[in-house]
């Protein structure tokens, strides 16, 4: 049986020489966390099942910085590496694969041009394409939306793009299903309502998407402690849980989280 995965996410600001890892709070404020490949190596040593790099730089002259981050990381980190942020063509995907990435994560570019998913999946395989969704609750009743029951009432989820700055009007559950049919091999699902709040994952959102698609779903947004990880694994079919700040700022270590999960009956790799 496949283990549930714990994935640290490194949000990288590549606008400075060599790049640095930062952590945003509710998609806005930024805190500095460390050097990308050093943090990646530390998490690898500590039992990370996979590592995600997200380029959150707004500028466009950063591609070389990202490939150098991946190259440096893959010298000493021997778990899958996923890279996202600003990848909008097959050629750009090729650059990060050639640098040593195993997967690319697509968000804005896939929403604008869904065929990019099939283009990359066709060349590198479905397992190499992760669709990232930034989803926000909408409590308005609208025709044709996938409504989900929550403690706060029924809502649907709207996809956002451009790093949470703009909304698309697209239903996140419908988009997840469509992306999988186009060849996305995994969904990285971030709750915008929970991201940075430390309130735990959005359980109804994660449960709904994981029920609707036949590919692994990575829960993201809101994790502040091991109990939140346990909750998302007990209450949903999420294959993996992603977190950033709880690992960056030494609030807890990956191995402690995994030991705790194992003790509570979750199948993890120790």
């Amino acid at each position, binding site marked *: *049986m*496949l*283990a549930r*995965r714990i994935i640290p996410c490194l949000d990288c600001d590549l606008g400075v020489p060599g790049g640095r890892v930062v952590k945003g709070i509710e998609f806005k404020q930024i805190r500095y966390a460390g050097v990308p490949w050093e943090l990646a190596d530390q998490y*690898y040593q500590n*039992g990370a*099942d996979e590592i995600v790099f997200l380029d959150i730089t707004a500028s466009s002259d950063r591609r070389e910085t990202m490939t150098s981050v991946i*190259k440096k990381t*893959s*010298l*000493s980190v*021997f*778990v*899958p590496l996923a890279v996202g942020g600003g990848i909008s063509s097959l050629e750009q995907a090729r650059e990060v*694969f*050639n*640098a*040593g990435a*195993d997967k690319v994560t697509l968000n804005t570019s896939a929403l604008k041009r869904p065929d990019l998913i099939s283009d990359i999946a066709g060349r*590198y*395989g*479905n*397992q190499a394409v992760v669709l990232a969704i930034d989803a926000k609750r909408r409590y308005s009743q609208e025709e044709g939306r996938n409504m989900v029951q929550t403690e706060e009432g029924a809502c649907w989820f709207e996809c956002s793009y451009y790093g949470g700055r703009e909304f698309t009007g697209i239903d996140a559950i419908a988009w997840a299903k469509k992306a999988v049919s186009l060849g996305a*091999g*995994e969904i990285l699902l971030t709750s915008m309502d929970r991201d940075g709040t430390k309130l735990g994952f959005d359980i109804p959102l994660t449960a709904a998407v994981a029920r609707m698609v*036949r*590919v*692994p779903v990575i829960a993201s947004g809101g994790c502040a402690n091991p109990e939140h990880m346990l909750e998302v694994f007990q209450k949903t079919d999420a*294959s*993996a849980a992603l977190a950033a700040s709880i690992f960056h700022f030494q609030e807890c270590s990956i191995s402690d989280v995994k030991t705790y999960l194992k003790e509570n009956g979750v199948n993890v*790799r120790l």
Partner: protein
Amino acid sequence: MRIIIVDYGMGNLFSIYNALEYVGGNPKIARDPEELAGAKGIVVPGVGAFGSCMNQLSRFSSSLLSCFQEGVPMLGICVGMQVLFQESEESPGAPGLGWIEGKVVRLPDGVMIPQMGWNSLSIKRHVNIFDGISEGDMFYFVHSYYGQPKDKSVIAATTNHGVELAAAVVKDNLFATQFHPEKSGPKGLRILKNFVRSTIC
């Protein structure tokens, strides 16, 4: 002492190269069959579809076979394990290397395809390359098809994903894994280290 990684044009070989170097393997990437001569060990990686892999690999097949027969330690990884079989449901009509009798078949309906993630091994044969590996240790898998050897005694380890399947096979100087040791953390590196050691003896 050199370990040759066969580069037949199917995807990047960075990960396996870096991992072999990390464990002291002194790897070299070979794009021509002639470069296999004198290899102390050979790694056959593989990504993509069985048919396109075999298409690209076929020009290496006679050199690989003579190395295999000479007893050079060999390691197949993922599709590099599948091509050892005679054929695959993924690419009907495309002949495999056929060093292992049997067929590559698709994972059963009802499970996530591809199998992607960490799964545990059940060890069937305590071969040297499993030194330091324990029952239940987890490795990283990414695949939609798996090999079914006719002779079950070649199965070195199994894993379970809807069906109990061969996760590693062994035949004389040949060892092959369906999982990716180069992506499987310290346990994967241990297997690569054991492989490197077998090339020294």
